Structures are given as structure tokens and as C-alpha cells.
């Protein structure tokens, strides 16, 4: 894998902004009364933990995507103020002089885990404080986590550096649950993950719950080997499959050493040679970009799967004969498409391709052909409704993206779903010029839906799409080869609001679970027009607010999830209440009030 430069990481983080938003705030004049306090006790195996840092931080609500105050602090330096307390001789801590708000208390005891398994496996407790409230019992009952350590070597005994080591928990019945491991690519890349080997091939995984585990390495998606070659997955000590793997038993707080893994021979990789030709003329196209992903690994052991993505196969550019060469491909099935990142952000290509497939068994492949088809261009002008001049500058920060849904169903389930599907249907993108001009190129026949995307604030949404004075409510149908000009896209900022309260009946929501409300709708409840979907967290008192909405009817969905801790194992979820839906109508400039009832006594629960 390319050790992605930090700018590219920046860009990739940007692209995931929907899921990870922090709101950086400058210390502002805060005139709230500071009369609340929080206290608790930290214990390790029942005994007081002395001189341990507990950091209490105020958590500002995440602004809903598309709201005006959207911003992203990549360095994570800020949420609210931090207050640091030390535990005393009895393990007790106390933080006073706090304003009312939502908080998180985090205990600095890395390597330790909660004494009792719970949905909230993190060392973070969330709570909220009213003005003047003295909240007690924000406790952390911890035990030392177990440790597994060993060495990863290749077939010749040479240490393998920077390899990911994965764990699988083995439950009592002998069945398998996937536990955590080095599955978080960002952590892995940045060496933050403890389960990556060092220069001696040594790894150390700590903070484990007592139990039985299988330990393995290799088999990563080729993307994530960081320049170190690819090996088929092997289990401690040198088993090629799980059945022959040796189970590692970890006791509470115990350390198991010598859990070595010897990998088999490196995966042999191969080449694919091919051509890009113009579908109509048959002429080769020089300088065309192609991108290849593996949809199925030959050994079925690709780390990232289930979404049709078995690894990144690489990309290439064609020479003057329209030929390209892709190297370093492991056996498996691949899908190849035209793709041009630069034009994605600057203009677009007139071509699209349906995607070609090829398969590598045990040798190089030649003669792969991509037929580049001339797509249709949708062009026109984007304007801001109500001539809202303040939003004019936002036009240049807004990008229009067009998604095509084919008029005929996909040829196979493989083509439809997941990243492979998204990849094959890569959207066309267009910036908006100073005069409002836009041009979406290379669109395939089918129904095209357009959405507005922006990274920075002032998020504009599409309120109308017109052509020749006729409103296109279901998207624009592209047939044949004719370009579609004169399209008028009207954008606006939402001014509607939903303020709601969740009433929990038939019980209380357990600690460590949180509620989220998603609103979908607006003028079109269309599953493809995803710019019409917003979400908000429900605060400690059951309130939620969704702002900047366009008018229309929305469907609210309240869902309950356990707190997610990326570093700890996803616990099997039982007895999770089913989501609740409710409709609400939003009008311009108005606040719609709604109450959503969550009845925990209902029998229809989701079980996993």
C-alpha cells in the first residue's frame, strides 16, 4: 500500500466527515453558572486506584451535517474544556465548578478493562449535569487486561515488520466470534494499533478480557501491507486454517508470551495487461486512468469483505496505444473501471465504462479490455433561491454530484452492491462556476439524481431541479446520447427545524447506550437523494434538535445503539429495542415539535 501522505489522509478524513465531526471552539466567554460537580471512584480488582488521572470533558453536541456551523478539527485538539482530577488514597475523585451540560469522564488507565463486560467497554463514562447538580458514582471498576505477545516470522524465520496481528475470540461452545484486531485501517497505518509487529517482528496486544483466542497474521488486503508483501493468513503457531490453530488462553490480567506465528510463503502476484478503447470507434484511448479492485480473493481471506471489496488492485494509466499494465495482483476476481480522480474534482471525463472483470488464477492475464463509452453531459446553471446574496460565495464551495441508476437491473448481485457497486457507478461531479455554470459529464443512461455536497459550512441543498420550466421531481432521465442542457438547479439553505423529545416508557435505557434520530425526507423521500438525510444525537434528557431543514414531510427514525469504542471488541448485542419511526412536517422558518415514544416493554426486539 502506498504509505499515504498526510495530505491524502487529510483528504480521506475529509471524505468521512459525515461520521466524525468535532466542533473546535475557541475559549469563549462562558457565563453559565458553575455550580455542578461530579465524583466517583476508580478501583482495580476492587482495590482503590490511587493517583490516577480522570479527565472530565464537556461534550458539545455534534452539529448535524449540513448545518451552518459545520467545521472539522482534524487534530482533535478540542471539544470543550478539560478538567483533570487525581484519585485520592481511596480511589475517589471529584471535579467541581462545572456548568450544566453533557460530559465525558475518562480514566487514564490504559491496559485496563472494565471488571464486568458491558456494552460500554471503553474507559469513558458519559453523563449530563444540570445546573447545581452533584452527580456521584461515576465509577470505574477495572481490572488489568490480559496480554498476548509473540513474534511473526516468514517461512525462513525472518521477522516480519509492521504486520497486523488479528485476534478472534473463541466462545465457550467452540464457535467463533470475530473480535478486535488490526481491523481499523487508520490506526494500523499510523502505528497506533498495539497489534502491529515492530522491527523484530514482535507484537504485543494488551487490555484483553480473560478468555480464549486464536491469533493470526497475514491475509491482509493488499492495500494495507505498507510495502511489505502479501502473505496468506496463518494462525499461531503455523496453521494455515483455524481448525489447526492453537487456542491461546488468557487469564485475567495475565500475560501469555511466545505466541509466535510463522507465515507461509509470500503470495505470488501477477500482472494484468489490457487496453482501453473507445466503444464506438474501437480506437485506443491514451492517457486514460483505470482503477481496479478485487471483488473476491482466491483464498477468501481478505480482511475487508462482506461489501464486495477484497482489496485494492491498483490503478494505471494507458500509454499511447491505449495499453495499461497492472502489477502486483494476487489471485482472485477483479473489476476494472475507468477512473480519473483529478477530473473528479476538476471537471469530469466524458467517458464512462461498464466495468470489466477478469480473474487471476495462477498466472498473468492479458487482453483485458475496457470499452469507454461516451456519456451524456447534463449542464446548466445553479442559482440560489430567493436571491440570498449572503449564500452566493457558498456556491463555489458546493459541488454537484450526479448518481446514475441504470434503467435495467444490474447484471449480477456482485455488480449491485457495496463498494464494487459504488465504484462501478462512480458519480460525476461538477464544481459550480462564478456564474453558476455547471457541467456533469460522462453520465450513463438511466435515471440521474443530483445532490449538493460541500465540505465547509453554509451547506446548500437542492430545492428544485427544472428543465424548460418543468420541475424534475424524480431526477433526470438520460437516454441515448443527447446532452441535456439548460438545466436549472435551485439551491437553498434550510430554515426549518425539528425539536423533539424522546419519551422512554416500559423501563429505563441502560447505561452505555445512546439514541440517535435520523430524519429523512423533505420534498422527496427518495432513497437515492441522500442529501435529504440528517441526524442528531439525543441528549441526556431526551431532547434532540435537527436544524437547517428544507420544508416537507420527514420520516424520523429513532434508533438505539451501544456506545462505540473503536478499540474494544464489538459485544454481541442482545435485547436492543427496535427502531421507532414517526412522521413530521417541516415548514419554512418554523420549528416543528414532536415527541417520540420508545417503549422498552415491547416484545419485538432485535436479537443478534
Amino acid at each position: 500500500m502506498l504509505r499515504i501522505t498526510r495530505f491524502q489522509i487529510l483528504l480521506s478524513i475529509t471524505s468521512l466527515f459525515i461520521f466524525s465531526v468535532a466542533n473546535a471552539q475557541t475559549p469563549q466567554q462562558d457565563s453559565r453558572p458553575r455550580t455542578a460537580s461530579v465524583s466517583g471512584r476508580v478501583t482495580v480488582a476492587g482495590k482503590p486506584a490511587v493517583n490516577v488521572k480522570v479527565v472530565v470533558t464537556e461534550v458539545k453536541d455534534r452539529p448535524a451535517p449540513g448545518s451552518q456551523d459545520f467545521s472539522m478539527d482534524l487534530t482533535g485538539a478540542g471539544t470543550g474544556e478539560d478538567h483533570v482530577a487525581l484519585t485520592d488514597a481511596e480511589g475517589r475523585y471529584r471535579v467541581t465548578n462545572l456548568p450544566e451540560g453533557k460530559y465525558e469522564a475518562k480514566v487514564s488507565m490504559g491496559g485496563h478493562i472494565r471488571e464486568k463486560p458491558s456494552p460500554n467497554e471503553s474507559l469513558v463514562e458519559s453523563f449530563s449535569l444540570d445546573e447545581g447538580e452533584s452527580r456521584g458514582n461515576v465509577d470505574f471498576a477495572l481490572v488489568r487486561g490480559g496480554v498476548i505477545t509473540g513474534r511473526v516470522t516468514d517461512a525462513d524465520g525472518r521477522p516480519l515488520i509492521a504486520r497486523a496481528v488479528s485476534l478472534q475470540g473463541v466462545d465457550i461452545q467452540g464457535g467463533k466470534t470475530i473480535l478486535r484486531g488490526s481491523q481499523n485501517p487508520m490506526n494500523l497505518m499510523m502505528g497506533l494499533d498495539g497489534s502491529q509487529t515492530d522491527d523484530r517482528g514482535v507484537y504485543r496486544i494488551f487490555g484483553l478480557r480473560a478468555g480464549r483466542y486464536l491469533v493470526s497474521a497475514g491475509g491482509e488486503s493488499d492495500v494495507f501491507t505498507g510495502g511489505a508483501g502479501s502473505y496468506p493468513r496463518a494462525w499461531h503457531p503455523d496453521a494455515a486454517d483455524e481448525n489447526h490453530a492453537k487456542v491461546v488462553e488468557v487469564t485475567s490480567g495475565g500475560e501469555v508470551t511466545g505466541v509466535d506465528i510463522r507465515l507461509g510463503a509470500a503470495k505470488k502476484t501477477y500482472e494484468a495487461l489490457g487496453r482501453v478503447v473507445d466503444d464506438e470507434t474501437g480506437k485506443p484511448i491514451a492517457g486514460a486512468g483505470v482503477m481496479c479492485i478485487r471483488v473476491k480473493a482466491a483464498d477468501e481471506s481478505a480482511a475487508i469483505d462482506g461489501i464486495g471489496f477484497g482489496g485494492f488492485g491498483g490503478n494505471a494509466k494507458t500509454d499511447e496505444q491505449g495499453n495499461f499494465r497492472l502489477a502486483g495482483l494476487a489471485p482472485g476476481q477483479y473489476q476494472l473501471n475507468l477512473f480519473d480522480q483529478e477530473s473528479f474534482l476538476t471537471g469530469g471525463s466524458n467517458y464512462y465504462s461498464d466495468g470489466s472483470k477478469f480473474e487471476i488464477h495462477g498466472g498473468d492475464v492479458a487482453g483485458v479490455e475496457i470499452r469507454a463509452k461516451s456519456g451524456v453531459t447534463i449542464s446548466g446553471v445553479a442559482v440560489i433561491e430567493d436571491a440570498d446574496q449572503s449564500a452566493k460565495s457558498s456556491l463555489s464551495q458546493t459541488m454537484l454530484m450526479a448518481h446514475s441508476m441504470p434503467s435495467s437491473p444490474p447484471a449480477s448481485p456482485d455488480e449491485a452492491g457495496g463498494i464494487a457497486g459504488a465504484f462501478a457507478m462512480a458519480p460525476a461531479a461538477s464544481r459550480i462556476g462564478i456564474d453558476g455554470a455547471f457541467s456533469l459529464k460522462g453520465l450513463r443512461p438511466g435515471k440521474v439524481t443530483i445532490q449538493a455536497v460541500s465540505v465547509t459550512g453554509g451547506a446548500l441543498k437542492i430545492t428544485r431541479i427544472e428543465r424548460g420550466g418543468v420541475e424534475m421531481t424524480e431526477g433526470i432521465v438520460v437516454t441515448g446520447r443527447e446532452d441535456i442542457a439548460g438545466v436549472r438547479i435551485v439551491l437553498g439553505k434550510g430554515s426549518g427545524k425539528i425539536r423533539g423529545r424522546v419519551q422512554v416508557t416500559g423501563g429505563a435505557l441502560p447505561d452505555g447506550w445512546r439514541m440517535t434520530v435520523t430524519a429523512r425526507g423533505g420534498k422527496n423521500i427518495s432513497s437515492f437523494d441522500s442529501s435529504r438525510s440528517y441526524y442528531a444525537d439525543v441528549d441526556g434528557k431526551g431532547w434532540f434538535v435537527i436544524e437547517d431543514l428544507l420544508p416537507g414531510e420527514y420520516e424520523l427514525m429513532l434508533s438505539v445503539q451501544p456506545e462505540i469504542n473503536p478499540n474494544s471488541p464489538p459485544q454481541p448485542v442482545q435485547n436492543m429495542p427496535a427502531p421507532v419511526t414517526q412522521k413530521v412536517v417541516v415548514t419554512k422558518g418554523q420549528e416543528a415539535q414532536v415527541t417520540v415514544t420508545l417503549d422498552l416493554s415491547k416484545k419485538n426486539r432485535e436479537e443478534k
Partner: protein
Amino acid sequence: MKRLSLTLAALLFMAASWTATAQETKPKREGVISGRVVADDGQPMGGAQVVAVGVGKSPVMGAAQMSSCDADGNFKVTGLSHGVYSIVARAPGYVSVQDQSRKYRIGESVIIRMARGGVITGRVTDEFGEPVVGVRVAADRVRDSEGKPGAGAATMNEMYSSRSTDDRGVYRIYGLEAGAYVVGVNVASPIFGGPGQTGREPPTYHPSSPRGAATEVNLRGAEEVAGVDIRARGGRGRSISGTVSGETQGDGFINGVAVTLYGAADKNLVGMTTQIGSQNFSLRGVDDGEYELTATRFNESMDLAISAPRRVVMKGADLNGIELKLLKLGSVSGRVVIEAPKAECETASDQFKVEEAMIEMKRDGRAPGVYAFGFFPMEAGGNLGGATPDKIGGFTVKNLEAGRYRVNTDLPDESWYIRAITQAATPKPIDVSRSGLTLKQGEKISGIEITIAQGAASLSGRVVPSREGAQLPKRLRVHLIPAEAAAADDLLRYAESPVRGDGAFEFKHIAPGKYLLSARQASEKDANDDQSRPLAWDAVERGKLRREAAAAKNEIELKVCERVKEHILRW
């Protein structure tokens, strides 16, 4: 939004290299740079990755291609268009041991040497002696193995120069280049920002000090230095906050602002915060001291705006309300013109591809904004200040701070030399090669014409001590001076070559004519400064050089296309 983010994530996150838009030229050479990665310890470098990044181009936007090595370390980067590239290799645990600033063109073959990196390891404890778990420890190189201070040395390998502590508080940082380091926790970094995990605590360096009092750790090569323990100081440090104003909106789609805090005296990165979509910034965990604050606005096309460095003094209180004003950066654009060849050298390659000339703007005085550019990967950072022309020779070098510049051109082929550098003006074009170019803040200069002609000569040889067995002085340079009086001020005909340990020197792309040679010892300051101006640029020094050369009478005539080797120059 899930669909959008999945798509964007897939497209932006997964892709490793991108292509430029389709071209119509038909390159005669295959767009390939091939070669081999070899390790000092003889280990096969199978699986190592090699990246070629185009000069002056944003790696995100289309100028990076990569290749993995086969089991023997052979690689082949394909799909490259005509241009100028930096080549970087990556293999975990190894470091590159050659000049990273060398540039390559398609058809060339490269041997990339790597050596096993060094290791620094130790234990981090808190003020109570307890192990600190899961904190990032960073090794910042302050001097390289030759003792040269590493400005921004932390930036390049930084991602690989930091590791987290385990449950025992033990960290192990490997794959480090030789040099002198300071090792610390809660250290700021371009990737992780900071300082601090919570952004609160000031950095602590081995053994338990602020940066100024840190004990250096010396790594001589592939060795392990253990016991580099750090006892965290705790405390909170102070905060610096404010807003960024001015040129915050660029033309890019994704505009971000990075605010960096550097030590005023030692220019070390102390803090950094990066924002997208907000003009407020806040840095925490800062010790008392004197610093420089700079803001840089960037986007996906690497168009930058920078604020003038702002000096701040932190003494016992938070600093709020600081405004950093972003200023536009300037650019220089023009054309490379190929003079119709009057003579053709035998060694001339099939065609001169104008896209393979590299134009660099070298600034007089302080190296331009190294700090701000430290955010970018070295592959691109080293390429800032440079550009390659398009198919018809048009070029633009952007992101230039105000100052005086000279134009440097790196030509692909030995048989070409620079005939003239002018700026379009009435009534006559200005000879830029003599006067240089002065750029005001944000100024865009155009109409620069660089004329290239065929028939260049080259000269290489050795400096030999006149007295048998005598040592050659250090920092020796050979100067090439035009002999004709009429060319006394034609700066394009002056050249300088460093002298290697064995006395070797080399000149390429020389206009045919009569020359004098002179060997001179460079000052220590000039020798250490990569950006140092050629001596001949200064009129007074030029005069001195001419007189020295005339007295020494080391004459040589270089004819059209002549390649002189083994020329002996006596010292």
C-alpha cells in the same frame, strides 16, 4: 449520506495514485521508470513500495504513481507522462540512504539504496512513576548524521517516527535515520496536531524536560538505543487561540487552514492545528517561551496562502484573540522556447520533451516558508517552488513568497543549455538572468521566456593538489567563468560545481565558448545552505572571480557538443 461517504471514502481513501487527463501526444518512450531497491544488509526488498511524484504537482490530484517491488527488489513504475519526478521508496524498518532531492525522467533506471533504520526504545512514566499507556512518543531528528541541522526533519518520516506506549509504558520507535534526536511525549505533529493526547499537557522530552533542556539521543545507524525513558512532567501548559482572516477562501473545493507554532529561536515545531471550515484556532499545552505563529491555507490542488510569521511571547497567561492574516502568494509563469537547433549533438536523445524541463524559482535569502510547507509530504514539499512545462512549454510556478528570485532550469538532456531568460516588456525584453525577478506579495509575474538551445558541452574532471600528497581543503568549489570580456556579466555562462571528497567536479549544459576555471573554498555558511546563491551573482564576487581566474590562467575551450572528461585542475 452513507452512500456519499462510502463513495467518497472509496474513491479518495483507497486510491493510491491518480492519472492526468488524456493527452494527445504520442510519447516515443514508454512512460516507465524502473529500477531496483537494494538494502545495505543484503536483505531482499521484495514488497517495498516505490512512488514517483511529479514535480510541482499535487500528489492528491494526479501526479503520483507507484509500484511494488518483486522478490528481488525490482520495480517498474508505469503510466508516467513526460515530466520530472521524485522517486521515494518505502519499506518498513528501512530508511533511504541517498539524496532524496534527485529528480528522474521516464526511461531512466534507478538504484535505490536503503539501510536498516535505527531503534530508540524506552519507558514512559507519569509524575508518580506509573507507566503511561497508549500515548504517542515521537522522535524528532534535530541533526542528521553529518551534523547538519534538520529543518523540518521531523516532518518527513514523522509518520513512521512515532509509536504508542504499550501496557508497560514501553515504546519502540524503529526505522529511524541516523542522526541526533530528541524524544518526547505530547509532542505536536503535522499529522496528529497537538500537543498532547487531550491537547492539554505540554510536551515532555527525555529524560523529563521541556525541549530546550532535552537530552539528545544519538543514532549512528542500524543500532538500538534503549533506556530512553521519559518521565512526563504533567501540568497543563497554556493556550494560544485566535482567528485566521484574509485569503481564507481559495479556489479549491476542500480548503483547510493549518496553524503552526514554532519555537522562535530553534524553529522546532511546537504545536499545530488543522481545520476545515472554521477560521478559529486554538493550541493548548504550550510552555512559556517565545514562538512564531504561522497560518497556511491549502487545498487539494496545493494552492496556498500564508500569513506572515507572528511572534508571540507566552509568559504566565493564555494568549487569546490573535489574528493571523492570510496573504496571497505569488506566481511566475511563462514559456520554455526551444531554439531551432543549429547543431545536433550525437548524444542527443530522440526528442527534447519540453515537459521534462524543470523550472525552479530559488529565492535569495531565507528558504521560503519551510515551516508551512512542512505539512506536505517531502515528495511534494521538495517540489514546491518548482514546476514542469506543459506540452507547449507553458509553465507556472506558484506559491511564491515575496522576494528576489533567480530562475533555475534542470534540463533532461546533456546536449541542451540555456541560452537566455527574459521577461516580456516594452520596448525590449528584460534580461532576467542578470537581474533576477523581484516578486511583491501576491504578485503574479508572467511573460518569462526561457530559451533553450542545442549544442551544449560538458566538462568533468578532478582537482588535484599541486603538491604531492597534500590534502584538498574542505568545501572546495570549482567555478566556470566565461573568458570573453563581452560575457563578463552574462550570468548564464557562469557555473559552480561542488568538489567531492576525491576531488571530482562536473559541469553540464554549458554554452560552447572559451572559459576559465577557478577553484575556491566556499564559506561555511554557503556550504551548509542548499539555497545559497551562486557566487557569480554578486557583482563584487564576480569581479574577484574573474581576476583570480585570469591570474590562474586555467583556460579551456568548449566546443559545440564537446564532452570533456578527466580534466585536471591543480590546486
